[in-house]
């Protein structure tokens, strides 16, 4: 039970990451089984399996992506309507969104495992129908890593899970090395939506930015995805602004935002939709997300010396 509660984000992301990694790989190495096994999901519920599931339904894009990244894409029989990566899953039956899941259609597919987010009423209904439900909701990088580990166990592919985590780590490290030295320690504002909601230091996006050596203008104390007063952004005068392209293009028109130096200097990364998806999904493409960020930083106009 406490296991599910411990997953609060922590600032010392790297420490936590390497710890989780060590745990996951130890678990992977120790296991070579054919007997029934069980895992603990993010609700703290123990779920038992006789053998690796062969007909899986996923109801969260990042979980769909993880199953595929572990090489088990062929076991998927249905997904939610937002899952769109890799290409092959777009041909699977779409079983609704997060809350309006089409229960009958899902049940008729006879899945032997359903992977869902924790915060959904559907779980009760599916379990009362006798389906095996694994609830995972990655919110921090550590969560995302643990989800990969748990799915590795569910699919009896712990070796692949460890390898996937290693690959992600390697890509993040490589991306961090490509960040131009002038940008190290730059203060960034990552906008998730126009309201404006930002990705704070404690969100998985914030953690990833931290791994790339960037500072966040939104401190961890404000929570992972706080809604900000637009004035807060102007006053904090970020060195760099990251947002979806369609939002980034209209930023200067917001009242008072033309004073933000980053906008006039062109220190803005506007991401296309596909790239933005990669950034905002805490799944197996986190390595790619780091690369997207590094690419953008490398392409920006040079940062003029010591500005502050």
């Amino acid at each position: 039970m406490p296991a599910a509660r411990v997953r609060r984000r922590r600032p010392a992301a790297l420490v936590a990451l390497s710890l989780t990694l060590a745990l996951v790989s130890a678990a992977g190495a120790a296991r070579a089984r054919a007997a029934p096994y069980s895992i603990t999901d993010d609700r703290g519920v123990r779920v038992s399996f006789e053998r690796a599931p062969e007909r899986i339904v996923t109801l969260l894009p990042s979980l769909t992506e993880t199953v595929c990244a572990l090489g088990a894409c062929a076991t998927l029989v249905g997904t939610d309507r937002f899952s769109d990566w890799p290409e092959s899953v777009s041909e699977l039956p779409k079983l609704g969104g997060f809350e309006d899941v089409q229960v009958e259609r899902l049940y008729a597919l006879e899945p032997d495992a359903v992977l869902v987010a924790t915060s959904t009423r559907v779980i009760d209904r599916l379990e009362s129908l006798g389906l095996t439900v694994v609830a995972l909701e990655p919110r921090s990088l550590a969560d995302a890593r643990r989800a990969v580990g748990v799915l590795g166990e569910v699919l009896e592919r712990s070796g692949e899970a460890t390898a996937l985590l290693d690959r992600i780590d390697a890509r993040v490290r490589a991306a961090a090395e490509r960040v131009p030295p002038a940008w190290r320690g730059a203060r960034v504002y990552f906008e998730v939506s126009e309201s404006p909601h930002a990705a704070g230091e404690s969100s998985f996006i914030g953690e990833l930015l931290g791994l790339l050596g960037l500072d966040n203008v939104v401190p961890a104390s404000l929570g992972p995805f706080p809604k900000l007063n637009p004035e807060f952004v102007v006053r904090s005068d970020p060195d760099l602004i990251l947002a979806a392209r369609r939002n980034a293009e209209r930023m200067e028109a917001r009242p008072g935002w033309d004073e933000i130096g980053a906008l006039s200097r062109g220190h803005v990364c506007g991401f296309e939709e596909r790239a933005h998806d990669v950034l905002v999904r805490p799944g197996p493409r986190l390595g790619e997300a780091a690369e997207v960020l590094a690419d953008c930083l490398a392409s920006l106009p040079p940062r003029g010396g010591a500005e502050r």
Partner: protein
Amino acid sequence: MKTAVGGAAWLSGWLALAGLVLLGCGLAAGSEGWSFAWGRESGLIGAIRAPRSLGAWCAGALLGVSGALAQGLFRNPLADPYLLGSAAGAGLGVVLVIASGTAVAGSSLAGADWLGQLGLTGAAFLGALGGVSLTLLLAGGAARPLVLLLGGVVVGVLLGAVADLLMLLSPEALRGKQIFLLGTTGLLGWESVLVLGVVLGVTLPLAVRFALVLDALVLGEASASSLGLDLPKLRLMLVSLMALCTGAAVAQAGLIAFVGLVAPHLVRRLVTVTHGPLLALSALSGGALLLAADVIARSVIAPQELPVGVLTAVVGGCYLMLLLRRRAVDARV
């Protein structure tokens, strides 16, 4: 009077028949369109279609009763089950539960574990009852209907604002709240049918028993009091019944629009009856209406599904508009 009673009997027969026919449709309306291979799909029908159809009927019936009670109590043909803060209360309950599962602004909500245990349906039910209780408290009991109505508006706005604030702090709550606002019959299982059935079985006979009060109220407050009725007490009783009906339906199926408003109007258009038969007939028509909407929602764009609340809102809205255009709304209710 005799013809009215005969008409009511006929109508109840027709509405019950409609319910049964729709139930049959409900068993056949599958996720891949209509299917009549019942032997092969018996598992699917027993586990999903049967409870869903029965649950939709029961929820509709409860909304029908609740709507008829509201319209009688406030002597207003536009009163609906969601008056008096029950909708906002239930919505707040849902948001609280979802937000409790996540951290709000870095720190957990107090009592989060307890809320999680309660579950969405429990919280919505208690929220609806809580909203109405708050309204009653604010209005100082049920003695003055107008104050009661205004109290309901105030409570609705206040609780709605709290829910909105929580949703801003915890974006996860947004998607849960949204489907709750739309209303859905897709998640009804046998447990839901049991709860809805028991509540209907308890509230409908009680409501019919106290329907005389509503008949007396048609004559006006003063006349009703002069008949020796303890109006504040009886009204409180009826408000509680209404809250119970609404709370149970809303907890299981979300804020289904218009069924509770339209069901009594449908009955009144067809027959002229006292409130006792009106309540029973409203239950039958409400059940048939929501079940019909559910069957249509399932089959019209199969294998996709429409949210049933959207459908009832569109159909109910159009029907009401028609009704309003046909004749200026008269005060006769």
